[in-house]
């Protein structure tokens, strides 16, 4: 499982990263606008860029069903439309709203990434309401003839979008001259040609619109009339245009022209842009229209290359792969029977060959499905950083969050289930770990507290470390609380190691903070965190240094869906041990097993390894007639820093298994993670190694 090729595209992830990119671009546009506004002169093209960004976001989120994002984009679009049409003036307050939208978009992206689609609905509605208030504040437009004596064709005016009309007015208001530039473009390179022309025109004026010319003669060409507003003379314009245009002329002036009806629907920009919008097209003559449609289709296609898949469908596929594995194992036993028959050697060889090919393909299929389930932890981390910002503000503590390893990948299901526990850990760090600024100053630490999250893959596990530079755990208080709760008695307490004391924080009802608060609650935090992590077959550990901080280490398997297991037998029963927690297995004789303080141990490479007998743990009875095996096997399992040797009778072999739940009635059987079918209608139990190790460690404490 460790040589899984790098992940391919994942639909939602792709969408989210694309959305994130757009939001970032939108943010840049806003920053630019802010700077330009401060300078007193802004480029209408920047508002257009912002509008396009939001428009793309609207289309994209619509495709992926992220309604909150679609709604917000839609309303932003309205505001930006009003801005670019000059209906609304760009005020600092308006920009604030737009910046707020950036934050909200990021929040929605983060939440969608983490699989939460219900949160923040109110925030969106609230912002939309405020956006609406601004967008609807239309300024009354002067009704006097705005065309300043220019003679404008009714045919020209009737095809102008509201925006173009607005820009036309602005140009006339600014006393610019209006020019018509007639240019022909090759059908294939029109995008490039037009862009080039625009670039050339940009320094001397503003392209108000371009319209396909009715006089197009050549089928391979599109002829456009570009309407330009510029301050320079005809000569200057001609000079700027260069040889690209067939002709440049100034629009004739006249005093009568009717103003076309306003269209209420905001139009998209008229730029030929491959990344352009599927919506907002205007009616034009055919060639351009077709091109635009093609462009729109192109962008739709690029989005449609990724698909969203219900994780249950993947579970179903995984189940099928598991059953194929069982069928394969069945074929293997047929092959073994064939091999035993000398007359069938040729057939057996052929089957062996075919079976090997099948096995390889099956492995690939499995790896492929697993890979689809993998998502980066960054999805959770993004969410955490927002939470940290909020909680630290509420708690009046300055906190810097540093994140490393956000690209570490884990099974989607685990990532989802991880959000809540990690959130709780963050709250705990901020509320109980990081001290108030004045206290920090007093102990010579910087005012700003640091929480760092690091994730990395180690073999088939992912290790997430959360470290704060706070006060550390109050060992005295922890012990006191644990004794109060009856978790340990005073005598046991004296014998606990520091690490054991630190781990008391995971006991129910133990909290180091006396007053309860809204967020971290009344000490119901860390035990729930531990339970949730254990449910994911993970283990959580704590280390702390007084005055220097606390480090939590969470170790998780990469996936829970399909795992490799070591099949073992003990006392006539078969069990599967998840291979990701098996370090090694070795043969031992009874002489190797020694007893220290009534606990069985053995030495392994100079270290003492505690042993556990599964039959004792599970109270399995051996058949009366069967003698105790003289030689046994030790399966060394380990999670985080804990090691334990399981004494078993027989190692059957390795197999890929699909873990199935035992159902509600048996969900709480300790030490059992689930069951799996091994072929031949045989169902075996899968051990919950984390729980067994824990039980053994707890047992050691009681015995000690």
């Amino acid at each position, binding site marked *: 499982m460790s040589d899984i090729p790098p992940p391919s595209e994942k639909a939602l992830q792709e969408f989210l990263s694309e959305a994130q990119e757009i939001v970032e671009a939108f943010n840049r546009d806003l920053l630019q606008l802010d700077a330009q506004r401060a300078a007193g002169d802004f480029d209408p093209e920047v508002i257009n860029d912002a509008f396009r960004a939001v428009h793309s976001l609207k289309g994209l989120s619509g495709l992926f069903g992220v309604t909150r994002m679609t709604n917000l984009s839609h309303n932003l679009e309205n505001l930006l439309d009003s801005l670019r049409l000059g209906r609304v003036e760009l005020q600092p307050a308006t920009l604030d709203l737009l910046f707020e939208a950036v934050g909200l978009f990021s929040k929605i992206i983060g939440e969608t990434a983490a699989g939460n689609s219900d949160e923040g609905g109110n925030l969106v509605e609230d912002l939309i309401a405020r956006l609406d208030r601004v967008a609807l504040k239309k300024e009354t437009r002067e009704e006097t003839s705005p065309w300043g004596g220019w003679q404008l064709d009714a045919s020209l005016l009737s095809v102008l979008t509201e925006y173009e009309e607005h820009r036309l007015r602005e140009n006339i208001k600014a006393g610019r001259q209006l020019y018509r530039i007639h240019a022909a473009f090759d059908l294939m390179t029109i995008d490039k040609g037009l862009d080039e022309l625009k670039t050339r025109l940009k320094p001397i004026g503003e392209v108000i619109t371009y319209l396909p010319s009715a006089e197009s003669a050549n089928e391979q060409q599109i002829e456009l009339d570009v309407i330009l507003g510029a301050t320079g003379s005809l000569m200057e314009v001609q000079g700027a245009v260069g040889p690209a245009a067939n002709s440049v002329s100034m629009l004739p002036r006249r005093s009568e022209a009717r103003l076309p009806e306003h269209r209420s629907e905001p139009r998209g920009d008229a730029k030929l842009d491959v990344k352009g919008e599927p919506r907002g097209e205007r009616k034009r003559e055919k060639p351009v229209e077709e091109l635009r449609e093609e462009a729109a289709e192109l962008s739709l296609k690029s989005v449609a290359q990724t698909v969203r898949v219900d994780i249950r469908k993947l579970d179903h596929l995984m*189940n099928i792969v598991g059953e194929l594995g069982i069928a394969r194992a069945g074929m293997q036993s047929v092959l073994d029977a064939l091999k035993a028959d000398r007359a069938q050697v040729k057939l057996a060889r052929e089957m062996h060959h075919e079976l090997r090919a099948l096995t390889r393909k099956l492995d690939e299929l499995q790896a492929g499905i697993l890979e689809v389930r993998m998502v980066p932890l960054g999805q959770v981390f993004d969410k955490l950083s927002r939470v940290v910002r909020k909680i630290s503000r509420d708690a009046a503590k300055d906190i810097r969050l540093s994140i490393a390893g956000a690209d570490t990948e884990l099974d989607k299901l685990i990532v989802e289930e991880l959000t809540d526990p990690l959130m709780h850990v963050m709250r705990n760090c901020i509320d109980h770990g990081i001290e108030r600024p004045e206290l920090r100053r007093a102990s010579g630490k910087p005012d700003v507290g640091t929480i760092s999250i690091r994730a990395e893959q180690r073999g088939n596990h992912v290790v997430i470390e959360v470290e704060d530079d706070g006060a550390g755990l109050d060992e005295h208080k922890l012990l006191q609380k644990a004794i109060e709760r009856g978790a340990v008695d005073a005598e046991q307490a004296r014998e606990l190691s520091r690490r054991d004391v630190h781990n008391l924080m995971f006991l129910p009802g133990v909290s180091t903070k006396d007053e309860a608060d809204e967020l971290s609650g009344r000490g119901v935090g860390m035990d729930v965190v531990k339970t949730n992590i254990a449910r994911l077959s993970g283990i959580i550990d704590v280390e702390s240094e007084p005055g220097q901080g606390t480090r939590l280490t969470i170790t998780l398997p990469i996936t829970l869906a399909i795992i490799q297991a070591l099949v073992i037998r003990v006392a006539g*029963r078969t069990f599967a041990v998840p291979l990701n927690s098996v370090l090694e297995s070795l043969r031992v004789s009874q002489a190797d097993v020694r007893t220290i303080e009534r606990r069985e141990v053995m030495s392994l490479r100079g270290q003492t390894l505690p042993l556990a007998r599964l039959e004792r743990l599970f109270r399995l009875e051996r058949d009366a007639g069967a003698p105790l095996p003289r030689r046994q096997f030790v399966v060394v399992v380990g999670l985080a820093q804990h090691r334990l040797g399981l004494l078993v009778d027989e190692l059957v072999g390795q197999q890929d298994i699909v873990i199935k739940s035992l*159902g509600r*009635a*048996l969900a709480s*059987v300790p030490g059992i993670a689930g069951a799996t079918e091994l072929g031949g*209608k*045989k*169902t075996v139990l899968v051990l919950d190694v984390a729980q067994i190790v824990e039980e053994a460690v707890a047992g050691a404490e009681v015995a000690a």
Partner: protein
Amino acid sequence: VSERTFSFATEETYLRRADEKHGQRERGILTFVVGGEVHGIEILSIREIIKPREITEVPRAPRFLLGILTVRGLVMPVIDLRLRLRLPAPPLGPRARVLVVVHEGERFGLVVDEVRDVVRFSDAAIEPPPPAFAARVDRELAQEAQFLSGIGRYHEEGAERMVVLLSLSSVLAFEVQA
């Protein structure tokens, strides 16, 4: 076990029959023998009936919980109804079957000594469980009183027969302690 027994024990038969007697609320009850006594469960909660096969025992589970079984890819706990009802439980005979039932979305296997028939009762023909009567007269009934949902009486071959209707919610209400 007669052929007839199994030909009745399908949902389709039930539905067809239910249609025939449309308008008259009747319940189809699958009857079976547990510990020498006839019990019944509403046929609608039964998914299938299988022959006993190797059951995987689950450590630390109560004794009546024999273990788990995988049927059509689904893992389910298997309960020995005889032990659950605190009735004698001799080794299973050739007629023993596992009833696969669905209760609140989860599957369970119930081991019974023998499957009998499907009988139909109108609601009126089902008596509520008689605790006083059970406690005084019938010791076995008293022991399993907590699992009863009612007693149905019906005529077969001229004789009146009685079936003890089991309440799945109480039979399956158990928790394995951590």
